[in-house]
């Protein structure tokens, strides 16, 4: 998952990628929680095949779909790249695989690879932009990258200041590291 997250959001000199910013941790926590198990959703049978515009109709939730999808991705990579797992491929090879999933040319066994990758893109990017309390967007790196000031609630002084850069750094729901006094060595 970390290898996948780092290709969806590659690192660059200014901003870490999906791995170091915590997107894989975010996805892992989401899958372990209510989202992964479809808690609160309508799960009564029968589960019939419908049209795409009728929405998701599977008894299997994202947790199960990710387990199947990641395993199928590794199997397909091993078959194509002499036994190598997805995480062991070069960046170029990884991107080739992902472009193949996106176009539908690279097929996964027992899983809709295109749909799985679309879901992974959505979830990894969601982790990048969600509040850091959910495990991604560590140190608000994504918010710093785009210029979003975070969980602030008062822009009264700024609503009429047009085309000026908002000067304050982002703040998360739990504040900012600078607000926490430096450690005094446990004394």
């Amino acid at each position: 998952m970390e290898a996948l997250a780092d290709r969806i959001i590659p690192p660059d000199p200014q901003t870490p990628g999906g791995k170091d910013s915590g997107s894989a941790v975010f996805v892992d926590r989401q899958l372990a929680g209510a989202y992964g198990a479809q808690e609160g959703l309508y799960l009564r049978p029968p589960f019939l095949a419908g049209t795409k515009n009728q929405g998701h109709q599977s008894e299997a939730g994202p947790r199960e779909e990710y387990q199947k999808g990641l395993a199928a991705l590794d199997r397909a990579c091993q078959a194509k790249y002499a036994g190598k797992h997805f995480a062991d491929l070069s960046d170029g090879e990884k991107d080739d695989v992902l472009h193949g999933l996106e176009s539908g040319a690279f097929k996964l066994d027992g899983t809709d690879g295109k749909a799985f990758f679309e879901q992974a893109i959505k979830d990894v990017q969601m982790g990048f932009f969600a509040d850091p309390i959910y495990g991604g967007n560590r140190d608000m790196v994504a918010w710093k990258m785009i210029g979003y000031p975070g969980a602030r609630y008062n822009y009264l002084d700024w609503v009429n200041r047009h085309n000026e850069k908002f000067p304050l750094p982002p703040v998360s729901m739990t504040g900012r590291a600078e607000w926490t006094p430096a450690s005094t060595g446990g004394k």
Partner: protein
Amino acid sequence: MARILPKKDVVIIGLGWTGAIMAHELTDEGLDVIAIERGPWRDAPTDFPPSQMQDELRYRVRHELFLRPDQLTFTFRNKMDQTALPIRSWGAFMPPNGVGGGGVHWNAEMWRFLPSDFVLKTHLTQRYGKAFLPEDMTIQDWGITYDELEPYYDRFEYLCGTSGTAGNLRGEIKEGGNPFEGPRSRDYPTKAQAQPFSQTLFGKAARDLGYKPFPQPSGNLSTAYTNPLGLRMGPCTYCGFCEWFGCSNYSKASPQTTILPVLVRKSNFTARDNSEVVKINTDRSGKRATGVTFIDTSGNEWEQPADLVILSAFSVFNAQLMLHSGIGQPYDPVSGKGTIGRNFTHQTISSVNGFFDSKKYNFNPFIASGSIGMCIDEFNGDNFDHGPHGFVGGGYVGQVQTGARPIESTLTPPGTPKWGTAWKNAVRDNYLSTVKPGTGVHGSFYAYRDIYLDLDPLYKDRLGRPLMRMTIDMKENEVKQNRFLTDKFAEVIQAMGANQIAKSYRTAPYDMTTYQTTHVNGGVIMGEDPTTSAVNRYLQSWDVPNLFVLGASAFPQNAGYNPTLTVGALAFWTADAIRNKYLKSPGSLVNA
């Protein structure tokens, strides 16, 4: 076996906007009122603290404040010959739950409908002839006129402290307001909200193109305000977390900020939360409601007898409870007979995103409110000649961006890859200089013979009752309307100076997975004729006169505006009819 509670004068089903308005009015009349709410109690300071609301994942993506589909959902299909499948996770709309209802997490866009909207069928037939309308279109007049509703629009606007600029004051057109609006008896209670950069730019571009832009009327207040109940509201701080979120700043009008603090102090008012009404009971004649049956969280069944029953749940649930209670004749789309489930509608929306030069434009798009923005109304309702265009209806268009919450607002120009370095760079370069108007094109959705609600033959809810089935599609008239409006809107966005624009038209088939506002209407519509409407002009059931059904379920079809102001005005109108007519002489207020 249900345990029977002591009788009340009035039982109210659902404590959202309309339930709260009615409870306040009828307790003022001295009646003993109980409101029964399916969801939890919610207080502004403790349930929507400003330190927790700016959480896009929890509230927007994971739907924290909304109804859970496992508690109740609907089935959906486009056409009558399809099998409807359950909506397992919300998409096209998100039903509210809990005290305050949709009034908790709405954007607070405070639009009046046009005078011609209320006499739609008569108006369009007179202007264009009957043959101009699609054959399967089943639009109707409302049975009430704009002039009759105007005092009640005014009451709801003043309850909420609405911020806006009048465009038509007692017939006099005012500069800076909406020149197409119906005459209003007095100015807005508070001045329009301040407009951020991109919204201002839209207003300028629209003016340069010859339109008459005006600020969107807002239930997020520009300034401090004390409402007629004596409740104080504070100025909006433009945090950009209205839509999907609650406001504890007492800046957004909601039942919590404008009614409930007064209502809960009245000794003749009682509320029961976490209790779901499953049936409106009637006597043997079927012509008189005797009260309701509800289920508490332990699954215990209770009966609450009452002389007067107010059904004020969310629109579709009103229709559902009518069907589950056997009140009124279910609508049959083949014969066109029956009324419950008839004229189900939604909203025809789309948008145009604009990508600007990041070296020249910094919009600070996160500075916003839920009903901020500059709009034009030249293409709404019948404000323009539809003759050459071959469709009816319309909507307002505007730069009504409600914030720039980063999960949903990190857009990239057309042609950008969906992932990888190119995507990341494009997100970084465009976030502050992109115009993302949300529902920038807000079009009407007219009614059709085969767009309706009925009970699903296959799927059941947790209590074993059939789910409500929605049969809904985008018809050619609405698709044409949307193409026209979206193109007009795109011209203004382009004229603002966008480098690139991305248009997304609303197309057929209707898609249950894409959010299209929560303005689902109809199913228990009002009108003049009991064979084509479920309630009369006072929202009183034609079949059971001591039952009134409030909310957007009464809309015969939907106009090109957000519905809540009309929903609230109709609740005040009905409360007035109950207080001044019905209570003096209980019985049907209209002779059919």
